């Protein structure tokens, strides 16, 4: 019986061509000598040079990185707490509202999240005098808020899968509640926490809409800078930036894939050994 019809193979080939032709085209044109970004004018690396000598871009990049790092870290802490609360506490007052609050940002269009954050900060400044200026702090607060729920979603599903009995076993062996959390629960969900952090980091690094509403003068993140450049049309140095991004991310994903694949195999092996020893 044919489980791999030609049709499916064709669609796969077409689909991946659709995914990668635009990206490859962009990468090729980043080496274009012509100023017209869409007309080939010979090979050149001048856009890479102009990219790295552009202080505005370099500054925007560092700002984005800083915001992404801080907001991902806080989002991970808060998001993990929320996940633990939702999975391990079957009952507490206001639980329904809480789970609603955790899910709502996932379906909230970014424009609405952005505008409500902006209005909130404007009114807050009027009421208590803070934030006097929107910028680093307000962007970070907004990013934490909308990326923490993604962390919650990831950690929550991992927690639901994890075997409750091992926590009970640790308690049975005399571990105190916080020791169980530290010794058992967190290590078990650590891969999910790590991928939650990575997701929060990329979401923050990538965000345009919410940042554009919560930013203030002098605080231009990299996506905002690209946004303003791209609005005016296709520019060659953005091609160069895109190429670097794709290469760095591609390399990162490959390395992460190999490392995680190895860790997965290792874990699988460990689990198998434990199982066999139990028999």
């Amino acid at each position, binding site marked *: 019986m044919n489980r791999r019809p030609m049709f499916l193979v064709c669609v796969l080939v077409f689909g991946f061509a659709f995914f990668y032709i635009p990206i490859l085209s962009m990468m090729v044109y980043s080496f274009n000598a012509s100023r017209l970004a869409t007309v080939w004018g010979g090979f050149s690396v001048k856009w890479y040079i102009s990219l790295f000598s552009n202080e505005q871009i370099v500054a925007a990049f560092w700002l984005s990185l800083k915001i992404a790092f801080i907001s991902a870290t806080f989002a991970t802490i808060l998001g993990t707490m929320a996940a633990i609360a939702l999975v391990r506490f079957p009952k507490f007052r206001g639980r329904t509202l809480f789970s609603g609050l955790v899910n709502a940002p996932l379906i909230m269009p970014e424009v609405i999240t952005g505008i409500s954050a902006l209005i909130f900060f404007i009114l807050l400044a009027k009421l208590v005098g803070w934030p006097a200026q929107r910028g680093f702090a307000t962007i970070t607060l907004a990013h934490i808020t909308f990326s923490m*729920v993604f962390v919650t979603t990831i950690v929550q599903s991992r927690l639901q899968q994890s075997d409750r009995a091992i926590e009970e076993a640790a308690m049975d062996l005399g*571990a105190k509640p916080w020791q169980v959390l530290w010794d058992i629960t967190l290590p078990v969900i650590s891969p999910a926490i790590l991928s939650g952090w990575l997701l929060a980091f990329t979401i923050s690094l990538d965000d345009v809409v919410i940042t554009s509403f919560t930013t203030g003068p002098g605080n231009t993140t990299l996506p905002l800078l690209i946004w303003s450049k791209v609005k005016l049309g296709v520019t060659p140095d953005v091609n160069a930036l895109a190429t670097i991004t794709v290469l760095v*991310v591609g390399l990162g994903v490959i390395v992460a894939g190999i490392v995680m694949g190895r860790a997965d195999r290792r874990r699988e092996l460990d689990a198998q050994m434990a199982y066999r020893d139990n028999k």
Partner: protein
Amino acid sequence: MIGWFHRRGWSDIIIALPYLWLVVLFLIPFAIVVGISLSTRTVTAPPIGFGGDNPWVSLSSYARLFQDDLYLRAFFTSITNAFVAMILCLAIGYPMALGLTRVSRNWRNILLMLVILPFWTSFLLRVYAWMGLMSKNSWFNEMLRDSWNFLVPVNWAVTFVPMMYSNFAVVLVMVYTYLPFMILPLFASLERLDPVLDEAAFDLGSRPWQVFVDITLPQSIPGIIAGGLLVFIPAAGELVIPSLVGDTRAPMIGRVISDTFSSARDWPMAAAVAVVLLLLMVVPMMVYSHYQAKGGAR
């Protein structure tokens, strides 16, 4: 049962911190937006009026929303664009996901990584990549133009294919950027299916396409719904894509909210449109959770 959290202090902190955070930075801001949608526009800063000369609760923004062609058309454009993008994603993504379940394990991992990879690169840059391809003088546009001119009579010939700044461009780029959101849940639900069920259906006399219709398709409905929502919901509220490649004369609702708020400084109107948009999003969400609840009962 008693967990490691049985001590009061622990559970309180773990619940209260994220709870408070979301209430202050998500719920209250959104409640303010709902409040503003019921206020009156003024020339003060901030440009909203409550009480005093203005009524405490005014539905005028909502009334205007349903009378003004601009808003209704924007809603219509958004929903159609998002719907068409969703259907196209399904049409491309379903066979791709099915194909992914049929390749060898090693290939599957590599291809899955290739599906996810664009997702980790910048969203903005993925939109930008298509701007490059669709623009007048690109190799892609020239290729399309040449094949068009080759196929049609001479008097229909064009100097370039007009793709940019149209709903076509918006849908195309949305399909491109959201396709992974369709493929991944579909793959997850198709991968779980037992190939023995296909064999059983073959054995009972069904042709390959009948097996697909009778066995594979019905069992992948949860994946179709999840993928469809993951595409439809962000697509309907999309701001970046229509701003960059969309038709300015037929804006999508995200653009309208942003412009009404920032350029026109009509906060109550922007807030009212936002509230209606969110209500529209709740409908498909309820369909989804209904399905999930049904699945959970199994």
